[in-house]
């Protein structure tokens, strides 16, 4: 029997496979069947197959993977390949044609029509062996959503293009909204891109390429659009003007092809193919980027893989906060999510009764599920709400909606000290010194109310839009009972980078614990480095307990010895060796500040003309 009569039918549904095979056998074909690629390759090895009819999903791989494999196999790449797919799971016809499929059939289909189409395809590929009249033509192989441009396989007769799989670009019509695209091939005139961005011939658009030498954005025009399934990305051919920018890009593509052909390592090639996504140039349009990954794009994969790397607990927390966006929490509306910390997530909220913006802090599911924590939180939030100080973010109220515990507090728009450290490296300036003085004076006020903050860190010190410093997040603050003989420790509370040794070791703590955390915070502020670093939380905590921090002067030679001593004294391991109150710290800081001002004035006097 000649190969023109032998068909390989591949489908993951065994019942369907046997039924279709039977119809083809009755029509006079010899049919081999396979559920997966492995079986299909065996059939191709042992039988002279003249046509492959394949589903787009097999037991082991996708139909596209199988087609790609065959087209790279010189012994089998000439076997006609037809996708035969269910109507509700069509996959991507365009992709199929780009990979070299000869046709694309969709079922359910009348048996007669199906057999006729197969005979037609066989006659087309083996004209000399035409035995049976071809079935009536005129039936489209793809369901309508009509297309003004020729179907992909017709265009393939145009000037041969070089395949360049999976090289990513960004496309935009307005340079604000950028869509990802994957280049399928290129020629001297332009590129063919698979993207969700729809266009029409003649429309101009910007294409952003990430080359080794940097990001290049050039203007192109849509030459043609291939659109065959409204639920799938489209293919658009884009042409570029003959200029140096396009030549540079074209040369780069050519070099990729050459390096792949000359046996460059796969890794190197892959790295070249997937340049990192780059932000749009600032100052264009609204100054923002709107990014739309499309189905199956690597942008999605990156997002998901990134989240997959986080710990399960963190993802549960973030998913919990995510579920609350756009919800009504008691008398407050959760407008949008701002961020999260170890204790909870923060939302920009709206107080419906008093009609003002608030920050809503939702306590993490784990903490709010502990009854002791809930009780403590509610009791102490009441106390802290009474703290009336211009440098403290006020707590307005606490609430509980269906077991979700939250409190509303003053919304402060501004930058945290953590933001400023990132922005400037460090804040070893008079301004930084003033911030430390303000925090000391504020925490002294807090101490006088017998309250300790317990979570002093750069993230909890905010400089608002008017330049006013605010201490935020009293979520884990604690009221000290001065009459009690001994307070009961509650386990480790605080942030590992700044936590005091006595908190870690479970001893009873007082305001001197905040002094340690404040010292650690401003160690970070003045040097740009936290006092202790480690591979994990445990390592950092052990450093707080046992290690001496690197002197500030070594971290940042510009830090004054005087200031360095103040910070180091604040961070003494033994609370007895620390400053015992904020007033003494303030005195020392003010002395130091006077010295700095005097030195500055002296310098200005010695250098006339400066300082004005």
């Amino acid at each position: 029997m000649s190969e023109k009569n032998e068909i390989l039918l591949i489908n993951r549904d065994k019942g369907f496979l046997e039924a279709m095979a039977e119809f083809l056998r009755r029509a006079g074909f010899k049919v081999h069947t396979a559920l997966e690629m492995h079986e299909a390759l065996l059939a191709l090895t042992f039988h002279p197959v003249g046509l492959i009819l394949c589903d787009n999903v097999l037991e082991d791989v996708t139909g596209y993977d199988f087609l790609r494999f065959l087209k790279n196999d010189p012994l089998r790449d000439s076997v006609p390949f037809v996708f035969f797919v269910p109507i509700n799971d069509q996959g991507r016809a365009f992709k199929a044609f780009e990979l070299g499929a000869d046709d694309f059939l969709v079922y359910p289909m009348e048996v007669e029509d199906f057999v006729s189409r197969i005979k037609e395809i066989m006659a087309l590929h083996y004209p000399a062996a035409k035995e049976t009249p071809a079935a009536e033509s005129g039936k489209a192989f793809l369901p309508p959503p009509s297309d003004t441009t020729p179907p992909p396989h017709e265009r393939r007769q145009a000037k041969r293009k070089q395949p360049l799989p999976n090289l990513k670009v960004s496309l935009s019509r307005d340079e604000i909204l950028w869509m990802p695209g994957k280049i399928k091939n290129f020629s001297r005139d332009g590129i063919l891109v698979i993207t969700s961005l729809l266009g029409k011939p003649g429309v101009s658009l910007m294409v952003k390429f990430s080359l080794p030498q940097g990001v290049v954005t050039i203007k192109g025009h849509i030459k043609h659009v291939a659109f065959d399934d409204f639920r799938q990305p489209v293919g658009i051919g884009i042409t570029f003007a003959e200029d140096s920018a396009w030549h540079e890009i074209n040369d780069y593509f050519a070099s990729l092809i050459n390096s792949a052909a000359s046996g460059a390592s796969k890794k190197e090639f892959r790295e070249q193919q997937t340049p990192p996504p780059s932000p749009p140039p600032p100052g264009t349009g609204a100054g923002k980027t709107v990014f739309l990954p499309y189905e199956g794009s690597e942008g999605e994969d990156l997002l998901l893989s990134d989240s997959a790397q986080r710990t399960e607990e963190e993802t549960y927390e973030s998913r919990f906060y995510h579920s609350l966006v756009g919800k009504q929490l008691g008398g407050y509306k959760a407008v949008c999510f701002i961020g999260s910390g170890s204790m909870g997530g923060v939302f920009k909220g709206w107080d419906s009764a008093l009609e003002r913006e608030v920050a809503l802090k939702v306590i993490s599911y784990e903490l709010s599920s502990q009854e002791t924590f809930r009780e403590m939180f509610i009791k102490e939030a009441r106390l802290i709400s009474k703290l009336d100080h211009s440098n403290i973010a006020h707590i307005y109220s606490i609430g509980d909606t269906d077991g979700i515990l939250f409190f509303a507090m003053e919304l402060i728009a501004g930058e945290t000290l953590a933001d400023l450290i990132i922005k400037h490296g460090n804040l070893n300036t008079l301004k930084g010194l003033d911030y430390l003085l303000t925090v000391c004076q504020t925490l002294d006020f807090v101490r006088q109310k017998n309250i300790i903050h317990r979570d002093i860190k750069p993230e909890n010190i905010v400089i608002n839009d008017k330049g006013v410093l605010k201490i935020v997040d009293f979520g884990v603050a604690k009221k000290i009972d001065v009459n009690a003989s001994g307070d009961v420790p509650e386990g480790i509370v605080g942030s590992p980078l700044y936590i005091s040794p006595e908190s870690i070791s479970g001893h009873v703590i007082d305001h001197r614990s905040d002094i340690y955390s404040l010292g650690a915070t401003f160690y970070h502020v003045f040097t740009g480095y936290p006092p202790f670093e480690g591979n994990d939380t445990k390592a950092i905590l052990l450093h707080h307990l046992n290690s001496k921090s690197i002197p500030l002067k070594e971290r940042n030679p510009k830090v004054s010895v005087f200031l360095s001593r103040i910070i180091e004294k604040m961070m003494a391991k033994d609370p007895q060796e620390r400053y015992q109150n904020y007033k003494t710290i303030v005195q020392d800081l003010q002395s130091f500040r006077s010295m700095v001002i005097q030195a500055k004035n002296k310098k200005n006097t010695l250098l006339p003309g400066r300082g004005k």
Partner: protein
Amino acid sequence: MSKIILYDCGAEVAHMVNNLFGEKVAIQNSSFDAQRPLQEFSMVIVETGSKKPEQLLQQIKALRYACNFRNIPIIVMKKKSDTYPKHPYIMAGATEILSLQAPPLACRQILQGYLIPNRQPLDQEMEYLTPFINSAKHVLKTMASIDAEYKELYFPNDFRIFGDVSGIIGLSGKAEGTAVITFYWDLARKVISQMMRVTEDQINAEFIHDGVGELINMISGFSKKYFIGKPYHFELSIPTVVMGSGHQIGHPEDVSIALVIFDVGKSSFALQVCLKPKIKKGN
């Protein structure tokens, strides 16, 4: 009382959901039915394992369509042994994938979060949403002789658009943001054919591009004139048309994103608006 429907879920999932919520929610277990309207339910839960992933993906897609743009979370409960990736479920329209082995407290809080009622818009949000709502109705009426009825709006916690075709326009100037109109295919064809004066079977890529792009351009353009001299005044960028379901839109940070649903007969379309004045009012 919130109502949760469990589709084709086994005893383990039913037991878990019952344990988490007790009598606080009405739980109904049912066989999958793509035609069933979901408006009465606050949540849909499906389970992996009892069917092939591809089949479940199709069902999730059908459920997402049945939601008709409404904010109904679709939760997938996954067995730990199930190694099928989460990504396809999310792209198909699932809101959340939870493992049956996840800590019950985490599951409870996450599910509870989705069950909390949606908030109503703020007055200042309605200040910029109302012109968009009126403009959408006006443009549909004058351009396509279609009566669109404003049904509801909410603030989604998912930035994906589960429609078939979307027109997107960037807004910049005194205020910045985005406006997006999203249709399912059948309504898109109807609207564009009436707008372009062609029959539905003549609709092709070019008509979709021009029609959907022009719709969002006109809706935003009509809205714009309401904002002259106000902090919400903006300029329009060039509209972009996107095909396919499950796109994720990035918006400016620290601002709410409203999703407005309009009904046209039994079909719906959605308008997403996000607008943030660069200068605060009163400053």
